[in-house]
């Protein structure tokens, strides 16, 4: 007898996805990759005044292997690009990237020979936060937007499709 809940986006799959997303979105552990003045705002956001821990990101992960969110805060020079790529590659799935500040998004005021014009040409970026540097509120807003984005993801879509084909 076929159980209705197993097939496709049935009850079990969707509930399991909700559970996974609940866990992922409530604990987006950041890897603080502060390379410029945005790093100072990042520190302020992590301190008690703004308290990023309210959104589950209380554990800054200084190893890419235990991090979920790459918080790229600051200018990326062309010399630095292989390092950033490598750190992104070392992070385990699932992983997200927040580009904090004008430099990380577009290169900012540094339209020069030494500065990489936006990190999205090296690694995929989920959230862009404008500002030079952005205020802690802006960073928290970006984190909340990322949390909403994580909640809408379908981590079991592949498995669901496989089940759909079987049934």
């Amino acid at each position, binding site marked *: 007898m076929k159980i209705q809940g197993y097939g496709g986006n049935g009850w079990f799959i969707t509930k399991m996805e909700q559970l996974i997303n609940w866990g992922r979105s409530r604990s987006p552990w950041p890897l603080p990759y502060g390379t410029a003045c945005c790093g100072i705002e990042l520190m302020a956001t992590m301190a008690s005044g703004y308290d990023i821990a309210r959104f589950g990101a209380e554990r800054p992960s200084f190893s890419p292997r235990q991090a979920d969110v790459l918080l790229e805060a600051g200018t990326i020079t062309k*010399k630095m690009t292989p390092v950033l790529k490598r750190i992104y590659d070392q992070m385990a799935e699932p992983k997200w990237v927040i580009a904090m500040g004008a430099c990380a998004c577009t290169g900012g005021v540094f*339209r020069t*020979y030494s500065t990489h014009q936006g990190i999205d040409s090296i690694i995929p970026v989920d959230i862009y936060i404008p500002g030079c540097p952005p205020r802690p509120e802006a960073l928290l807003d970006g984190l909340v937007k990322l949390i909403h984005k994580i909640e809408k993801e379908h981590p079991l879509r592949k498995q669901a499709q496989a089940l759909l084909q079987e049934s």
Partner: protein
Amino acid sequence: MNLERRVRICLESNALSVEETAGDITVTVPAGRLVDSLMALKEHPDLKFDFLSDVIGIDNLDLFRKKKGKGKAAEEEPPEKKVKAPPPPRFEIVYLLLSLESSERLRVKIQVPENDMTVDSVTSIWRAASWPEREIYDLFGINFLGHPDLKRLLMWDGFKGHPLRKDYPLEGKGETRRLVYEQEKIR
């Protein structure tokens, strides 16, 4: 005795010119006598410039071109002045010295023409000159003879060009650092 007199006595004929700007003294020495001059300034009992603050490179491209008669300014200059002043060499290197004993400061300048871009390294006198000289080598392309480890300091290895030269475009020439990992290198 004021500093200018003492510097003149110490350097003798090596002091090509001694100028004072805003209370600081700039002395120009011939590039070939650089190490001797700096050594003399360091060892002289009346001066004792024992601390090297910084080494700076200058690119005088605009002046260089104007004096050569390519720009508008050369036409505006009176003819007698035009004959007198030879075109200044394109590059200059400035050594900022400090005497820890008397707290006096001195600028020592050498001129580096474009056709002879090699200067003696002063790392034998001050180890501190190592990184500033590497920086100048990196960004201006001036070679330092006798430097223990002359390689690029700020730009990556394999970078072509010298970005602080005035004829280098500000936004670069589209250089990117290639993503090379160790595994790729082994293959």
